[in-house]
């Protein structure tokens, strides 16, 4: 699994005996201790370790919360309040689990954007990237299912809106099958609880494949060029394990601050009102981490050809996730890292801002007018609304993948790449900047 030949030598007869039967110590040695890692990885490369830490936190707190939670439409809301008030440390466990989801997504967004910036998805890491997109999808499903469990107004109506969306795509028979009834009700809650408990373990399984793929091909790195030998790498232990412990500590400080001092920072008041199928809250908002996708869904308020606006919204939202799967083939540039791609660098940071803007827009009521230009026939203000902003954001989101990525590879002139990782690192230390290597590209990449 680990790239390179194994360096493990069993130290005594017992270890030799075990190694011949189950080479588990060899496996741990090759993957956790001596695994060769590029020596120039910065802090953005530590988020994989942070994500594993988040997954463990969510699974451990989730298992103990399930010992007190009751997945029944009549009892669920009160059982959550019971956890908060009566269960020993229940408030702490629930706040860790609830905010853990938000921090999980903060970390996964940094991790994914890191991949987009440094071109981590490019040959030979396409499968590694695709497995990551699958994990991201599973995380969104798990987050949504967890959101419905407290059976609050937000839970109930969020479940209503999302399942109705799937109904727009797949029909009424499908939604009734999904609900186990004629509306979102007790059978829906019970199956959502079952799946919410299952999916994290599926995530764990896909994560094993993700890390396997990583350790098979090795880490990418900020220069985007492959390590050429031992002078370019350091063993994982202790260099990066120490770095992981440090960043996880810093991450935990922020996490603990929110848990203890602002536990409802990411929440919504309607999450503390029991679900009522006869009364819709005035404003339904998803969790912040799904805001961008929700904004894209709502942005489609027009019909396109034979597709009506409702279906178009669903297709846009699913397409926004689906397009991530083909990113390795959309990006035509051979240069991996945005550090050496001046135009892509700008497009990337605009994309980050665009995604942040969409995430914000998705949490706002749809009709809000941002720039009033006039008054409609019914006296309501008209002008540039959240919907218009979301449409612009959606257009750039797709343009980044479908237009910018394929075309930049053809027209962009990349900067000169260093000859090796060691040279890039040492060159900087001497204060000489990037030394111009021989044969550096000074023209658009040649296509053969």
């Amino acid at each position, binding site marked *: 699994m680990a790239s390179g030949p194994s360096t493990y030598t069993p130290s005594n007869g017992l270890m030799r005996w075990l190694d011949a039967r189950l080479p588990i110590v060899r496996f741990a040695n090759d993957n956790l201790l001596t695994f060769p890692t590029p020596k120039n990885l910065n802090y953005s490369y530590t988020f994989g370790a942070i994500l594993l830490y988040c997954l463990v936190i969510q699974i451990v707190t989730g298992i103990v919360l399930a010992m007190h939670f009751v997945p029944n439409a009549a009892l669920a809301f009160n059982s959550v309040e019971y956890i908060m008030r009566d269960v020993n440390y229940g408030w702490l466990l629930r706040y860790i689990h609830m905010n853990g989801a938000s921090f999980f997504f903060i970390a996964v967004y940094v991790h994914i954007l890191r991949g987009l910036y440094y071109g981590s998805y490019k040959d030979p890491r396409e499968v590694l990237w695709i497995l990551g997109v699958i994990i991201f999808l599973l995380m969104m499903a798990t987050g949504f299912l967890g959101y419905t469990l407290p059976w609050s107004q937000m839970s109930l109506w969020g479940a209503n809106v999302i399942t109705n969306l799937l109904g727009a795509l797949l029909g009424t028979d499908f939604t009734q099958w999904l609900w186990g009834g004629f509306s979102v009700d007790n059978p829906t809650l019970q199956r959502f609880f079952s799946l919410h408990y299952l999916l994290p373990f599926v995530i764990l399984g896909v994560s094993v494949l993700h890390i396997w793929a990583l350790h098979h091909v090795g880490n990418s790195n900020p220069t985007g060029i492959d390590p050429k030998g031992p002078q370019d790498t350091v063993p994982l232990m202790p260099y990066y394990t120490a770095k992981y412990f440090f960043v996880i500590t810093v991450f935990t400080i922020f996490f603990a601050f929110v848990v203890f001092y602002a536990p409802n920072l990411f929440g919504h008041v309607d999450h503390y009102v029991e679900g009522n199928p006869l009364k819709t809250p005035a404003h339904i908002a998803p969790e912040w981490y799904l805001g961008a996708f929700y904004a894209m869904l709502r942005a489609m308020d027009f019909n396109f050809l034979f597709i009506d606006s409702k279906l178009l919204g669903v297709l846009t939202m699913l397409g926004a996730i689906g397009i991530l799967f083909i990113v390795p083939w959309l990006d035509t540039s051979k240069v991996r890292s945005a550090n050496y791609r001046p135009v892509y660098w700008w497009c990337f940071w605009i994309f980050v801002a665009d995604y942040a803007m969409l995430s914000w827009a998705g949490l706002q009521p*749809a009709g809000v007018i941002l720039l009033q230009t006039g008054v409609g026939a019914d006296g309501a203000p008209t002008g540039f609304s959240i919907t218009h902003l979301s449409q612009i954001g959606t257009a750039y989101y797709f343009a980044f993948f479908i237009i910018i990525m394929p075309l930049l590879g053809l027209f962009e002139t990349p900067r000169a790449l260093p000859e090796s990782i060691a040279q890039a690192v040492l060159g900087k230390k001497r204060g000489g900047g990037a030394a111009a290597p021989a044969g550096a590209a000074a023209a658009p990449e040649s296509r053969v």
Partner: protein
Amino acid sequence: MFSAAAAGVGVAVTAWPFIDQMNPSAATQALSTTEVDLTPITPGQQITVMWQGKPTWVRRRTPEEVAQIRAIPNSELKDPQPDQERVQKAEWLVVIGICTHLGCIPNRDNSGEQGGYLCACHGSVYDGSGRIMRGPAPLNLAVPPYAFLSDTLVRIG
């Protein structure tokens, strides 16, 4: 070829109970009709009953309201349907009170047009027949299957 087909049938037959268990159960199906006693409803009043877990409105319309609703020309409607096709008796409107946009519950809006409904979520406006007048909702409020068992008793479903 044959063994592949046999294996395919075997997999499908085995998988079906695991898929079908998610469909509405017999107990859920048994509660799929609701009977409503109409005697306590006064003219102009509307009550909400639950039918299949969905809020369903039973509204006793006054003759003036009916006249006003039926005066709206079909050409003004997004989802054209005359009021006569949506009710069995002019006096009684029975509709499912779920917005056809994204499933919110509209409010009775007497100040609005034709004594209709306003969905606060995304601003869809319905008339007193539950027909969509304005806003993002694509269709009129759904009319459930119902039958008058007597002059004062309706069975929905």
